[in-house]
């Protein structure tokens, strides 16, 4: 085994230790032990990400393990968001009322399931073949559905059930696409489906197109691309806040990475224009569906969920466009969206304590009644809206410019209009949430605010650093690695 193989093993073993620890650790040590293991898991994922991004030219394309710049990027994001979700989980568990599980076991089940979700998430970017990637994605459904319904409330049950059924059926369609691909390649077992083999496979053009469309249509149900996004607002709004962050900031882009790799792998057979066109189509439809909801007065977590739909559409557009500018935008967008969105979801825990109406209604004037919380909400929403100097402003400019660069002016123009409309909707929500008229009179102390304030203090410099890095990125080795892909 090479050093990278050992490192990949460590990345996957550390969260497994977290699952085991949830079963055997004494109650009074549970949170501390799980937090310590989360730090180790995040360090392993971070080191692996640095290795992949520092040496973008040295890719590893094994049968079961792949490590490339895109995978490194996602490993870093999943590591950071997994760690921060683990850190704020104790706040959520301390304030939870009721659970899907027996009270005595609820905390242990929560930690075990959180680490199970985390480990399969980490496995997605590392999977060396399409079959293993599908297995990891399907496994995320089982673990995360339990977490979505963890509170045991009727609304959470509804959200978890919808998520479980819709995404499982969608992934069934994606698996049909994989089988069509394998049949078209004449069988050959797992080697046929490896990311290194697929670009060179001898496939019938028409069959490959059908397989690609089935695969992307199925994955779309999990990524939350319109028009198969129905589960997304419900699951994001009803899940515990640390889980909502993992769903939006880590799960959606991780599954999107598989769609991206599939596009790169099949482009030699079906043509880069066709492969990218399907992604551009999903991107534009997702943006068009998301924008009206960003203009509506929404409960905080539901607003963030529709923002996820918008941002997954933006990333799909960038991947579909391809080229150095758009892919630099994609890299910045994945990281910037993860940081800003996770902060927004973490802030939901003190927000709900401060104003319980926020669970089902839009909030107003939080900056007036609880300034620190208002600042966290404002920074998250401002960054997600693409308000300069947010890195998402730079990434969206790069992606739109990338569309013009590769000769898709109509799609780029439509995207620019939709992004401007989305910005206006979120900007209105930003003003209303932070400095608008406070609604309701029963404001309470914002429990858990300290952790969110600390995370905000960490997130702001990271977002600014990302904005600065975005200006240098298009000409970097990382982006050239992204353009080169796995071929």
């Amino acid at each position, binding site marked *: 085994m090479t050093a990278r193989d050992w490192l990949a093993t460590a990345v996957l073993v550390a969260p497994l230790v977290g699952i085991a620890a949830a079963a055997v650790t004494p109650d009074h040590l549970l949170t501390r032990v799980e937090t310590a293991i989360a730090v180790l898991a995040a360090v392993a994922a971070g080191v692996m990400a640095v290795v992949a991004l520092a040496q973008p030219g040295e890719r590893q394309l094994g049968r079961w393990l792949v490590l490339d710049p895109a995978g490194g990027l996602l490993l870093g994001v999943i590591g950071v968001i997994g760690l921060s979700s683990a850190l704020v989980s104790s706040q959520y568990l301390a304030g939870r009322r009721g659970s899907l599980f027996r009270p005595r076991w609820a905390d242990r089940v929560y930690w075990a399931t959180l680490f199970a979700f985390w480990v399969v998430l980490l496995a997605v970017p590392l999977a060396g073949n399409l079959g293993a990637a599908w297995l990891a994605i399907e496994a995320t459904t089982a673990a995360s559905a339990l977490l979505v319904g963890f509170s045991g409330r009727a609304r959470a049950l509804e959200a978890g059930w919808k998520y479980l059924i819709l995404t499982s059926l969608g992934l069934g369609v994606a698996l049909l696409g994989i089988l069509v691909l394998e049949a078209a390649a004449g069988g050959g077992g*797992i080697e046929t489906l490896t990311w290194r083999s697929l670009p060179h496979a001898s496939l019938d053009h028409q069959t490959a197109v059908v397989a690609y469309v089935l695969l992307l249509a199925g994955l779309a149900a999990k990524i939350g691309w319109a028009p198969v996004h129905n589960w997304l607002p419900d699951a994001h709004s009803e899940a515990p806040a640390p889980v909502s962050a993992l769903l939006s900031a880590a799960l959606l882009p991780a599954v999107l990475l598989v769609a991206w790799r599939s596009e790169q792998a099949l482009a030699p057979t079906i043509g880069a224009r066709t492969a990218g066109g399907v992604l551009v189509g999903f991107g534009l439809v997702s943006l068009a569906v998301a924008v009206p909801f960003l203009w509506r007065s*929404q409960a905080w977590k539901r607003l963030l969920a529709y923002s996820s739909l918008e941002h997954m559409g933006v990333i799909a557009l960038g991947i579909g466009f391809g080229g150095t500018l758009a892919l630099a935008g994609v890299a910045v967008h994945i990281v910037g969206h993860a940081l800003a969105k996770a902060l927004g979801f973490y802030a939901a825990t003190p927000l709900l304590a401060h104003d319980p109406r926020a669970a089902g209604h839009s909030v107003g004037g939080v900056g007036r009644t609880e300034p620190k919380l208002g600042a966290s909400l404002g920074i998250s929403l401002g960054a997600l809206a693409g308000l300069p100097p947010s890195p998402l402003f730079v990434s969206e400019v790069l992606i739109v410019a990338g569309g013009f660069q590769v000769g898709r002016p109509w799609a780029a123009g439509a995207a620019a209009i939709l992004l401007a409309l989305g910005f206006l909707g979120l900007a209105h929500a930003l003003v209303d949430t932070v400095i608008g008229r406070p609604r309701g009179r029963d404001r309470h102390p914002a429990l858990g605010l300290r952790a969110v304030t600390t995370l905000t203090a960490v997130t702001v410099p990271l977002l600014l650093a990302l904005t600065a890095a975005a200006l240098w990125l298009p000409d970097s080795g990382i982006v050239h690695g992204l353009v080169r892909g796995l071929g």
Partner: protein
Amino acid sequence: MNAVAWAIVALGIGVVVVRRRSIAVGIVTAQAVLLAVAALGKGTSLDSIVAAAALTLRGVVLATLLLLLVRRTRETRPVRAGVAPLARAAAAVALALALIWLMPPIGLDSQAAERATLTLVAIGLVTAATRRATLFQVLGIVLVENGLALAALSLPGTSSLAIEIGVAVDLLLIALVAGVFHERIFAEFGAGDSAVLRSLRDS
């Protein structure tokens, strides 16, 4: 192989129209047994034997889990589907015909296997979409996966046993989680009826 494939499809149509959950569970278990027979029909290599054993085990574990759920969540009266049985069957046949018409040949061992696979996927999707009972929606997923298992058995050359076993394990995990939800929905609302899950709306 072709006769087995169409027998699996015929059983699938049964799941679309039957009312009782226990009968439907019996039908998908029979499908799993037939899939195991189909795996053995491919030859007596170690891969075929392991595939048959995995499919049988998956079928038995699923049947045990689902029948246990049926027993623990006795409905006072069957959950009515929103669509009549004949209309459900017609919808499944129509979707199957549309898929067969739309899809080019995909390179499975035989045309019958390709058509049977697409028909089972269509039956599964229609079952999940038109049945209100939560357990039937899970059976819709199982039907789709049975169709995909048939396709995997009909691949030319060798298929990946590791992936096939992984798919079976994933299906069991999904069914287990669905079981947790089904029990809790039953306890909360007094029925395993997805129609009661309609409170989440945009404001």
